């Protein structure tokens, strides 16, 4: 069995824990605690969320969700090595989500070949959400990664993130051959 590591990182309230719970085939390890400040929800992740999904008979993907706030960057260091893929989730209803994308790209992806996908959540809460600003952040760093809206609660939507990373890894393997 091959084990791979998929990182899920992003804004507060972007749906990282939800995506992992939606995708995981095992009971997830969650480190949610009650938030002491108003973040629009009761619980927030302060450690690592962990889940696992099997892809075929010989590949298991460990799903690692980490908090997106800068003060938790020591947790990022624990998981950023040897990534099979990185999912950045952004909460469209947060005014600074594009800025968050910028620093997460610089930290996790800059100068790396790690397959990346950017998922925009809560887009239905924003009138005519435009993906252009997120794409511009990628272009500024010469990155060409898929950006699309997702609903972290729906399995079909969440699995699209994983399938996209599979596709990007396959493309990387083909180019390497």
């Amino acid at each position, binding site marked *: 069995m091959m084990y791979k590591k998929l990182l899920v990182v992003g804004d507060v309230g972007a749906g990282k824990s939800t995506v992992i719970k939606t995708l995981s085939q095992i009971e997830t390890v969650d*480190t949610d605690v009650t938030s002491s400040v108003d973040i629009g929800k009761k619980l927030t992740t302060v450690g690592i969320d962990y889940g696992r999904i099997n892809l075929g008979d010989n590949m298991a993907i460990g799903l690692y969700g980490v908090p997106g706030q800068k003060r938790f960057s020591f947790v990022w260091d624990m998981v950023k090595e040897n990534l099979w893929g990185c999912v950045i989730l952004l909460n469209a209803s947060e005014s600074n989500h594009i800025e968050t994308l910028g620093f997460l790209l610089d930290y996790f992806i800059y100068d790396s070949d790690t397959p990346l996908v950017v998922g925009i959540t809560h887009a239905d809460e924003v009138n005519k959400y435009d993906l252009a600003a997120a794409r511009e952040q990628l272009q500024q760093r010469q990155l060409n990664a898929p950006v699309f809206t997702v609903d972290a609660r729906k399995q079909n939507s969440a699995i699209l993130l994983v399938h996209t990373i599979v596709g990007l890894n396959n493309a990387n393997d083909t180019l390497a051959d």
Partner: protein
Amino acid sequence: MNDLTQEIDTYFEAILNKYFEIKLISLCSVDGFSVSCKYKGIEDIESDTIAAISSSLFSLAKASSKQILQGELSGTLVETNTGNLIFKHVVIKKEHYVISMMSSKKMLLGEANFVLADCVKNISKF
């Protein structure tokens, strides 16, 4: 600065003065916001970093205790060759916090644990 922070600051300073081998003592909310952080004899430490590390480690230990030990976590320990770092859960005015204490290797682990347990008992009455 609110009253709780002031009270905790004063209490933590007294602990640092009383025990030479205690190098740091800090209190943060369970989601990683610093309430108070006092230290001596060590390089400058960001209280926000201590708070974030405390809440993360405590939450991971809590997840372990729930899934492996099936028990309620009261504390966790980081042991190194230079000293120990102990984290405990404390409730003050119905709010949940994590208290962390760093002691040098010269202080016995049992004593450090006893001192911190005593701190928890005292500050939970604030």
